């Protein structure tokens, strides 16, 4: 039994953390929030240079030759620093889709760019509000042409390449599209966390190419979502831990009635509860990381566990962060709202916790039947 990261992995994490502490203070996220920028280009370049984007990409395609245990630790630090870059989307969704289903020439074409950060990828699934039914999309791909509209496309303001779930004659398939191509209209939408834009993508006869087999779209998408859920859970966990740490520090420095407010049980017991839920989420994330690294049969269940508990702790810590900061927590000037926004964003971007709970039950029933 060795349910921990290695010393090398911890060292890598430390390096990432140190870099981001230096280069990505929260002011960086605020700058994107308060401007028209859709992400921080400088940090994106750095992420590429340090091999974060290609952590799970084979070296032959420009990857860094790390593994998933390294990747999740990078994700945690990206989450902790609220770095305004399309990391989880490009790495967790687009890269994973191509790794899973790309033909060698597609891998060659896309992965190198994704690893180098020259290309930013996304995955476009949803067409309307509510839970997504992967088997049931109206966007079509016929004769090489994509038609339809995708909404809430993650990091849709930053991406230049989209993997699109489309209907291909009754079944679903994945299609890669260049967002600069003719027939693609992109509209960035107002969203709860403007530092991670979402966009509507309208396709009118846009040229695309199949990714993976015809009819494999839903299955491939689910596979990618499961894997991305684990990576995103680590990003959520990082944000939650940071929100918690800031809150703990604030409530200990803030005095009322002659003593630190964290000395009041109304605060300290709730901090204890948050700590507990953070630890539970972290443990579920560990299990997810193990499943990802070993491509274990348990991965789908591990993904649900990680996703559900990370979404819970992300929202809990950010809600409590605002509340425990009191009045200043509700001001634009303080950083609380950036955590509040990001937590909600990350909790939805791969579908709500409800959808993951439903999926978990399906897996558990299938497992009991087996």
């Amino acid at each position: 039994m060795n349910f921990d990261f290695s010393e090398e992995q911890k060292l890598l994490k430390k390096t990432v953390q140190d870099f981001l502490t230096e280069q990505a203070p929260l002011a960086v996220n605020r700058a994107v929030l308060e401007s028209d920028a859709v992400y921080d280009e400088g940090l994106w370049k750095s992420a590429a240079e340090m091999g974060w984007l290609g952590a799970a990409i084979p070296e032959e395609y420009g990857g860094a030759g790390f593994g998933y245990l390294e990747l999740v630790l990078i994700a945690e630090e990206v989450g902790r620093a609220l770095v305004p870059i399309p990391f989880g989307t490009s790495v967790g969704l687009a890269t994973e889709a191509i790794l899973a289903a790309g033909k060698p020439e597609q891998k060659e074409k896309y992965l190198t760019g994704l690893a180098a950060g020259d290309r930013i990828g996304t995955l476009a699934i949803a067409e309307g509000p509510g839970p997504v039914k992967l088997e049931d999309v109206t966007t079509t791909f016929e004769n090489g042409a994509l038609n339809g509209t995708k909404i809430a496309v993650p990091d849709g303001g930053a991406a230049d390449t989209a993997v699109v779930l489309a209907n291909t004659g009754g079944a679903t398939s994945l299609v890669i599209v260049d967002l600069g191509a003719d027939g693609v209209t992109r509209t960035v939408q107002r969203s709860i966390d403007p530092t991670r834009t979402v966009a509507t993508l309208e396709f009118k006869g846009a040229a695309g190419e199949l990714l993976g087999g015809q009819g494999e779209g839903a299955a491939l998408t689910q596979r990618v979502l499961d894997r991305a859920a684990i990576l995103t859970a680590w990003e959520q966990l990082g944000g939650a831990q940071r929100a918690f740490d800031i809150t703990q520090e604030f409530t200990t420095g803030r005095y009322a009635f002659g003593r630190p407010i964290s000395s009041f049980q109304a605060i300290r017991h709730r901090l204890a509860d948050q700590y507990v839920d953070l630890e539970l989420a972290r443990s579920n994330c560990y299990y997810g990381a193990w499943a990802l690294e070993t491509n274990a049969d348990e991965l789908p269940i591990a993904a649900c566990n990680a996703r559900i508990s990370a979404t819970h702790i992300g929202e809990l810590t950010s809600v409590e962060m605002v509340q425990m900061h009191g009045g200043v927590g509700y001001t634009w000037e303080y950083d609380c709202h950036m955590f509040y926004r990001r937590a909600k964003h990350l909790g939805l971007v791969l579908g709500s916790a409800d959808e993951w709970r439903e999926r978990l039950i399906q897996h558990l029933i299938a497992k009991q039947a087996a």
Partner: protein
Amino acid sequence: MDFKDTPAEAEFRAKARAFLDEHAERLAPGESAAGFMERDDPDLIKKSQAWQALKKDNGWACLTWPKEYGGQGLSSLESVVWNQEEGKYRTPPNVFSIGLGMMGPTIMAHGTDEQKERFLARMARGDDIWCQLFSEPAAGSDLAGLRTSAVRDGDDWVINGQKIWTTGATYCKWGMVITRSDPNAAKHDGLTYLIVDMESPGIEIRPIKQINGASGFNEVFFSDVRTPDSLRVGAVGDGWRGATTTLMNERASIGGGGGGLRAEDLLGLAKKVGRLDDSSVRQRIADFYVRASGLKYTGYRTQTAISRGSIPGPEASIGKLVGAPMMQELASFGIDLQGSAGVLIDRDFGCQDSYLGSPGMRIAGGTDEIMRDIIARRVLRLPTEPRVDKGVPFNQIPSGPPTP
């Protein structure tokens, strides 16, 4: 037990309705009444003042104030009926509630005859708008920990410091500011309550941008601001007593919130996103509805008590303590219902705006935690925690971590 008006209530209601029908338009179905003012629009403020003056001149303003101060000397019963009726009409935003609900009653209780004479009638008519200057950056929940100083200089007081969360500071003529006049006295003993002209030199007002981008509140900075001793309310060092009067009146005016997303609305949202048949969604909505119903009927019980002459007590904290977190939960749930599209700012149901706005409701006017403490102490009469800040000179109470 019945929901009908008594004959007296019915008569008063008919009179109120007649006046309103003559001077205002009824809200369209589904239209909500104007709330607190979001932004300081001078035209809107003029309209508000005109409406207040019209009400005053026709005997419909300050119903419960004594006649001698410009009121109508009526009971809470009439006031409740009037508010119900006025709420059905399209009227300008009410910018007077702090003055009429809190500052006026405080002056009546602790002010000098000259102050009453000078201020109350104009306040009642809306000629002057008033604000309250209480909270400070380091004195929120612990209001009595305030540090804004007032030093006596001849016939004047000289005020220095910073107040925060002041509603309407930009358009108010008068403010009531609670200051620390003796830092060597115990915490609650060295306070003095002053009226100050908001146009005085040395006052700087900065709007506070909230996390939802709106700015309903202000920071107010005092740099050697002078106000005459004749504008002192209550004795020197006895400001806490006046502040308590103000706060009691504030509590009575903090309602259950109202407006915003309702539990029933979620049924429409669930339908829109194809989840109306999902029992997990139905169960959650039912719980919200039951809670909201409990709050609504608690309001009916309070109204009945008021109409029988009770003064709303600390029980009124329930409305805010239940309503504010529920608004946040409703919004969060409504967002999640929308799945991955929930990140989009949706105007139809407004869940995202509500998610960004509701945290403020859990803080303004007393945090959830303070509300629970009020209920524990004042309603349940539970024993309190040991206090380290009582009976100690104010300037010896720890206000931050010990310097190492």
